[in-house]
Every structure is written in C-alpha cells, then in structure tokens.
C-alpha cells in the first residue's frame, strides 16, 4: 500500500519526525523520499505534508490535513489561557485520538543548582521570573500552584536565561536532562509527561470515518502505541 488509504497526514519535522516516519513505514507506506528529501513539504504520492510540530494542529484544524502527529506539549500550549481558575477547555478544534507513546519528554521547572533561586525570589520579592518557550503552560502551572510568576517568553536556548540572571527558573521540555545538567541546572518540579498524539480534523473524523478507524486499528496493533 502506497498511501495512508487516501488520508492526508500532517507530519512534524524535528524531534518527532523519526518516530512518525517509522510509524508510517510500519503501516506499509513508502517513506523513502520522505526520509531523504528534507526540503520538500508536500509528498502527494503518500498523502503526507511536513511542517514544524506546532503548526500541525493549525493545518489539521483547518482541514488542510485530515490527521496529524504532534506533541502533547504543543496541544497544551495552544489551549487558550483563561485566568482566575475559569474553565479552560478551548484548545484547537481537533480530536485527540491516540497516545502514540513515542517522543516521551517531561515538562519541568528547573533552576540553577544549589539553593533554589526561585524559592528565594518568591520569599523575598513575592514573584518568580520564569523563562520558557511555553508561556501558557508555565503561566497556568504557576497559577494552579498558587505562585505569582512573571513569564518571559524566549524562542530558543531557554537554559541561557537563568545563567545570565534574567530569570530565576525555566519551564522547558526535557528528554534526558543532559542539556540541563550541562548548564548547571537542576529539575525542581515535574509538570507533566508529554508524548506524541494522533489528532484528527472533526469533519474528516465523520466523513472519512472508516478510513480513520482502520488506521487507528492498525496503529493500536503496533507495539509502541497506546502504551505510554
């Protein structure tokens, strides 16, 4: 079988790419070109479009792709942040169908080794500054745990922020903790475990029900999926 039975799949480039391509291969899809051509975006023969992981929900929500693979961190970050403990269920209008189990990472709160500078800041100044690529997740977490935080959004190398004294702590995703250790940071709290998820467009979920269900069935039959 050369295509994912007529479905368009949004595949994330980056950390989840390898796992996703492997998944497609084990479904019998020819991923040769997908593996070798990293500039191409649209692989019509196999019904695949590639993009950065945070764009996957956008394309799937709009129906430009029927289904997609993205990280739980991305889905959580795209939940609208409603403050003051208001109910906040309004994420992307996509269906989360399956925990694919791979790409396992932990969202952590980390700060410099030694006496926790975040605690000290909270004690003396009543607020902790937190750098992150996930401003909504970080803000929600601090609010839920009753701490006043000042969120500083950065686009890359979050570890730099506490080392330069810009902030006292970071919220970031870590797989092995190596980068944190190398930068003399220690994990203070674990927020959540994030894995790759299979998401679907609501209309495709109805109009292409049989094809999506068949795919789900086969994915559930694979050793990795749903075991996270």
């Amino acid at each position, binding site marked *: 079988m050369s295509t994912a039975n007529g479905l368009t799949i949004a595949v994330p480039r980056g950390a989840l790419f390898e796992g996703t391509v492997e998944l497609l291969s084990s479904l019998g899809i020819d991923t040769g070109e997908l593996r070798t051509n990293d500039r191409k975006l649209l692989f019509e023969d196999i019904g695949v479009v590639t993009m950065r992981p945070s764009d996957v929900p956008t394309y799937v929500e709009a129906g430009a792709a029927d289904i997609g693979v993205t990280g739980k961190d991305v889905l959580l970050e795209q939940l609208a942040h409603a403050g003051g403990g208001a109910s906040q269920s309004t994420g992307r209008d996509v269906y989360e169908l399956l925990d694919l189990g791979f790409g396992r990472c932990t969202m952590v709160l980390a700060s410099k080794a030694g006496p926790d500078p975040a605690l000290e800041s909270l004690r003396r100044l009543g607020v902790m500054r937190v750098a992150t690529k996930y401003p909504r997740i970080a803000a929600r977490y601090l609010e839920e745990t009753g701490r006043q935080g000042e969120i500083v959004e950065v686009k890359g190398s979050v570890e730099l922020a506490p080392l330069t004294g810009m902030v006292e702590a970071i919220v970031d995703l870590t797989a092995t903790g190596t980068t944190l250790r190398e930068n003399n940071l220690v994990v203070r709290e674990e927020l959540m475990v994030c894995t790759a*998820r299979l998401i679907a467009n609501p209309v495709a979920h109805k109009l292409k029900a049989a094809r999506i269900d068949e795919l789900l069935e086969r994915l559930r039959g694979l050793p990795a999926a749903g075991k996270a």
Partner: protein
Amino acid sequence: MIHPIPSGTRDVLPQETGEVRAITDTLRGVFDRHKYGEIYTPALEYESVLARADMAEARPAYRVFDETGTVLMLRSDMTAPIARVVATRYADSEVPLRFCYFAHTYRGVRPQRGQLREMLQAGIELIGAPAPEGTAEALTVLCDSLQAVGLKDFRIGVGDASLFPALMESLQVSEDHRGGLLEALVRRNFVALEHRLHEAGVSGEAAELLLEVPQRRGGPELLTDAPAPAVEAVTGMRRVYELLEENVAARVIFDLGLVRNIDYYTGAVFEVYDPALGAPIGGGGRYDDLLGRFGRSLPAVGFALYVDSLHQALAGEERGTGALAELRSVASTGEPR
C-alpha cells in the same frame, strides 16, 4: 484613511452581498414552502432573561450597560430568543409553531483562528413537535435547504445528547466524574477520556464501552447492535430514521459520540459537514427542556446554518473538493483561498 474593524467581523460589499443574497433567498423559499414564518428579534437582550438558556461554550460574550445600569447582552444564537418569544407572545397558542430567521449572532473568538465574532445564521425552530416526527421534519427541511442552495457533497451527522449520560448512569460512573468525562467527549479527546475513566475507577467492560461506543459512526447498521444502556437513545434515532424520505436518509451519518457544546440539547443533535470545509457548516438538535425554562414547557427542535460557512463550502465545491486538491491549487496559483 484606513479605519480598522474588529477581527472576526467584516464589511460585506456588493459582489459578496449578491452571492450571499442568492443563498438566503433560496433558503427563505424552502423555509416558506415548509410553512415556517420569519421573525426578527432584538440583537440586544436582558442578561437576566437569556441566562435562563444555559449555553455552555456558546454563551453570549458581549455585555453592555443601558442608561439605567441594567446589563444587556448581544445574543449568541436565536434559539434562546425564540424560546423567550414563544413563552411571552405565544403563551396560549396552539402548537406546533414554526419559525424561521436570518439573523446575526455574536460570539467571543480565539485570536487568529478565522472565527467569526458576528455570524449570520439562517435557521428554523419547530416548537411543540416531539420526537420522532418533529426531528424528522427538521432534518427534512435541513436537507431540502442544503440541496436547494446547490451544495453537493454534504452529510448530516446525527447523534443523541442523552446517549453518553445514559451510558454513564447505567454503568454506575460516580457522579463526581461524569462532568469531566463528558467534557473530554465534547472535545473528542479520547486520550483524556481513557485517562479520566481510569481515574474514575471505571475498568473492564464498562470502560471499554464508554470509550468505544462514542467512537461508532456510520450508516443505519450502527443502530442494530447497540449495547443495552444505549438502546433507548438508539431506538429513538432509528424511529427518526424510519420517517425520513430516501433523499434525506442517504445524507445521514450516525455518530454515537456526537455531543454539541451547548447544554440545552436533550435528544437528537445534528451537525452539517461538507468535505470542502474543515469545520461544521451548521448544527442543531432537540431541546425539550429549554422552553420550560422560559415558562411554557414544550418539546422543540431546530437547526441553524452558518451562512458564511455555507458560502465558503459552496465556493470550495466549485473549486474541487478535498484537502490535498486544495493544497495543490494553492501551490499552483500562489493564491490563498
């Protein structure tokens, strides 16, 4: 000079007005043929009155104070205002009552998502007509409407809002957990649903059913082997289905997990899909308790079509359907849609 307007609103200029008018005129003709009388209600209502409707995620988002300090709201749908009209102006009238409307409704939006703050809805309300006949009539008008405007590939998803609550009840899910489970289902987050079932201590066959039944969608064959707790809802769906003409029945997809994000639905719920658009272009259902909240207890059913979405779907069908077809046309012409 450039003067901006709020995101999610727009000016409709003559070319678009002409196209939209063609759609609404056609719909008006269909509603009229089925004996639905057109009504207008104010866009502004008292907050204290509309609050009776309990609309969950579709609740009104805009409030203003009038000159006496009373809180007014911009309506977020037409079902609640029409329920108010029936209780107030048709308190003793014979039923069924049939109303149709073309009206702007107002909702809050999430930024950069193409959502409409001001949305033109065209719909009907059939008051005092119980299931299954009333439901079948509403579905028939809906199907006639979509066919009349020339939409080719649409399907109507039909579910029942009482099905999942009935399943939870009969499988003895503790009441504390029901809200969370229903919320996961409303978002169709099946991963969260599975986790929450585990948290709620539901396991084995019960968990299996609660996870698997709402994922069933397909043709009428779905209605023959429903598990015992779902039988009542499914029997209701089958009765409606049996009343449908062939051209309507052929458009129906049954979806045992269909739950809309509005709390007032009590029985059958529908959503309209077209492969040319990634989001529903209309929806509706039965709201047998809503009229009672306004003081005249009557069973009722209705639907609303989102005129702008319908317009987009029609344009999309003209260009050739399907997600990948869409991508190709963008790539080749360089023009977004």
